[in-house]
């Protein structure tokens, strides 16, 4: 992911403040030395860089369609340029603003209700001393991550759906049924619950790693000084994982406009467009499905730019608070 655990560069400290020219020479020499020292590490990143270039940067060329009246038959080279007309159409479309609003509220709900869950789960697991139980619990909570959304939602439907296990049980005992799978009003809570069920277990991995990195001597010393369980958590555990929490939060903010596309697509007919339309499904239905690629590209480009601004802002804020954020300054 990032260079958080990387050792600080072993730069030599010059005895007297050098001139600007000297500084440049030094910096250059320093850079070369660092490169020589880290060359095998740099080499190892090459496949990843190639991957990003081919699959992330090259396709960005396709965003030109947002400024064209793109026809799938004419292609990039022969479709007429239309400037910002597509964006005008996009911003005049109430369905687009509705999709944006849905995306933002859903993100907010998930930030509040989902984001803390893996942290709490990790803290909880960390207090379990038996490795056997810990590994077992960990495996069980990881498992749903490997299910596809189709499967996950089918399980929810089989359990909580109108004809699912719960409601059939209620019917069998002459109790009133509970409609959660097709209720647009509570849909935001439902999708968040689904995300918690599917992803919380997976999300704890990085926090567990951060917890494992905390020096156990600190706990021993604190315990010797008479600190109880809560004080140890407050003064040692939480500060120990703070930088990771902030990093994950910054990354999460960069993703606020990307809300489970498949999850929404699969449940669209169950709750209707009003409740389930997010930016990605909007781009899909109005862009891909109706072969109106320009509009889809414009919506996605808008989303991409906004996400970049969000992630940079969040990073800036993290730095202001003295945290590392995405990278060390």
């Amino acid at each position, binding site marked *: 992911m990032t260079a958080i655990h990387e050792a600080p560069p072993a730069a030599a400290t010059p005895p007297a403040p050098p001139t600007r020219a000297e500084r440049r020479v030094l910096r250059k020499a320093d850079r070369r030395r660092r490169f020589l020292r880290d060359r095998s590490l740099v080499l190892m990143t090459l496949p990843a860089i190639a991957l990003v270039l081919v699959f992330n940067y090259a396709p960005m060329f396709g965003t030109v369609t947002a400024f064209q009246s793109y*026809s799938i038959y004419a292609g990039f080279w022969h479709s007429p340029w239309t400037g910002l007309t597509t964006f005008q159409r996009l911003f005049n479309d109430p369905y687009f603003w509705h999709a944006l609003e849905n995306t933002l509220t859903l993100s907010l709900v998930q930030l509040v209700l989902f984001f803390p869950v893996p942290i709490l789960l990790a803290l909880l697991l960390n207090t379990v001393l038996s490795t056997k139980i810990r590994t077992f619990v960990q495996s069980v909570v990881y498992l749903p991550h490997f299910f596809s959304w189709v499967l996950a939602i089918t399980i929810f*439907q089989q359990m909580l759906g109108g*004809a*699912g296990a719960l409601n*059939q049980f209620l019917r069998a005992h002459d109790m009133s049924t509970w409609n959660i799978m097709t209720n*647009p009003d509570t849909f935001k809570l439902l999708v968040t619950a689904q995300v918690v069920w599917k992803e919380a277990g997976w999300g704890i991995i990085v926090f567990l790693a951060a917890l494992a990195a905390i020096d156990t001597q600190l706990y021993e010393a604190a315990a010797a000084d008479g600190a109880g369980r809560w004080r140890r958590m407050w003064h040692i555990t939480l500060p120990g994982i703070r930088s990771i929490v902030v990093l994950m939060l910054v990354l999460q903010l960069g993703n606020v406009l990307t809300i489970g596309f498949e999850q929404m697509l699969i449940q669209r007919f*169950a709750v*209707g467009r009003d409740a389930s339309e997010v930016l990605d499904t909007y781009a899909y239905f109005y862009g*891909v499905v*109706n072969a109106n690629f320009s509009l889809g590209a414009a919506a996605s480009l808008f989303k991409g730019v906004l996400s970049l601004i969000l992630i940079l802002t969040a990073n800036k804020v993290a730095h202001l608070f003295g945290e590392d954020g995405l990278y060390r300054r």
Partner: protein
Amino acid sequence: MNPLDGVRADRRRFLELAGLGALTIAGSGLLAACGDAKTSSGPGTTDKNQLAKILPAYVPSTAALTPDIPSAPGANGFFSTPVYLKYPASPVATVTGVPGKGGSYTTMTPLWGSIPSSKGNTYYDTVNAALGADLKMQPADGVNYDKILPPLFAGSKLPDWLMIPSWNMGNLGFADAVNKFADLGPYLSGDAIKAYPNLAAIPTGAWQSCIWNGKLFGLPTYYSAASAGGAIFYRADIFRQLGIDANSIKTPADLEGIAKQLTDPKAGRWAFGDIFDYTAHIFHFPGDPYRWTVDASGKVVNRYEMPEYLEALNWFAKQAKAGYVHPDALAGKKEEGKQRFWSGKEVITGDGTGGWAGSDAESGKAANPSYEKQAFKLLAADGKPAMPMNPASSMYSFLNGKLSADQIKEVLSIANYLAAPYGSTEWLTVNFGKEGVDYTMTGGNPKLTEKGSKEVATTYQFLVTPVTPVPVTPGYEQVAKDYAAWEADMVKHAVKPAFYGMNITEPAQYANLNQPMVDVSIDVRYGRKPISAFTDALQTWKSSGGEELRKFYEDVKNKYGTGQ
């Protein structure tokens, strides 16, 4: 009596049908006012004179057989499909030599079912060996086919031979799409087709629906002389158990009347699946592929504007709110609908008529030994049953425009083999693969072996098909008889909808109009939104392009008529 007379007569009638007014105008012609200035062709349809020049000649097959249940004549020149209860004991060969020249071609066809592995697939190997060519079969998920196609065109990744169903064309801007395909006119129009006798035996009506913008682009598949959009099916065994007489059900009100009795949530049983799309013929609004019609005053109207459509929405919403519709159907779980019907969780469902076959009965009986599927005789809200007919063919395959003339000729020879009629040796190979490995003859009919049922899928048949009788599965002959009886009754009420068989391609800028209407229509019929939400959306639809699209259809009507 000549044993071949029966089918010949049917085919002659098919030809007559083709000559009727219904098919006087299909295909193309540029409507300048609405056309796209950038392209040579554009939205529109084809006029009568052009058609006469393009259509291939019709030469009936000499290998035809007498059906056990001959086709029944219906209204407006339509007639039902014949049934052959046993495959001929000594099938004839209709193709001499090997049609292919060793060429290699990629194909893509939709498949509604699990996609077979191509590795070690005896079926593919057998058919390819018989064809003398290497057809690389790439079936793709039929349910999501409409979403697979636009990127395929956009990426210029078209296969050599591609099938596109008519209901997937709406979003493709098909007037432009066809320019990517080979014009088959020079090879097939008029007498040229006689070089391919099995293709020449395809009725004119089916060819007519393969014409766009004044050119013959398509090869027809699964055409019929009475193609209905679907039917309302019920579980006859459950009806019997509850003492309900299906013949007494004639109107939607009657359906509603038995819904309470059929619904027993405690037992996990509900009266209906999401049958809304199949109620078009009951309430008399145009179902797909037709979205426009002409009202009594002669005005062109969209189905969303019709009181009949509102009535249907209201009716279904009422069933949904009353709790008569299976909750999973209301959660949009369409793809599991068949399972629910097989296991008796839904008693009444809607489906295409192709789903009324031995294979369905086999699956149904596996879930429930007493399983019996029947279709209601046509219901009607106003007491006047009518079934609007789909075009003779609504699925077509196309050849990539990049193929050379020699390659096109080779592919057409291959198509000639694939179009071998029922009763021929080639038909057995194309549909069942290798005898003894993929199928065995059981009770006079071919039956897939266990290996065969994993390998054989509807793939080659979606490239081109001969006249297709009602399929018979050994052990399920009764299903074919039931279907034939229903169809014989249905064709009596067959009508030609407005713009019948005209292959109209709408201007691309209106492609997005439909989506909000689809969404709100689902919201209303599932009972989530009041009917006023629908009428509000309709106002937006009108002002954001609906009125312009009406003008487009009025122009088509004035220039080319309505195809009726």
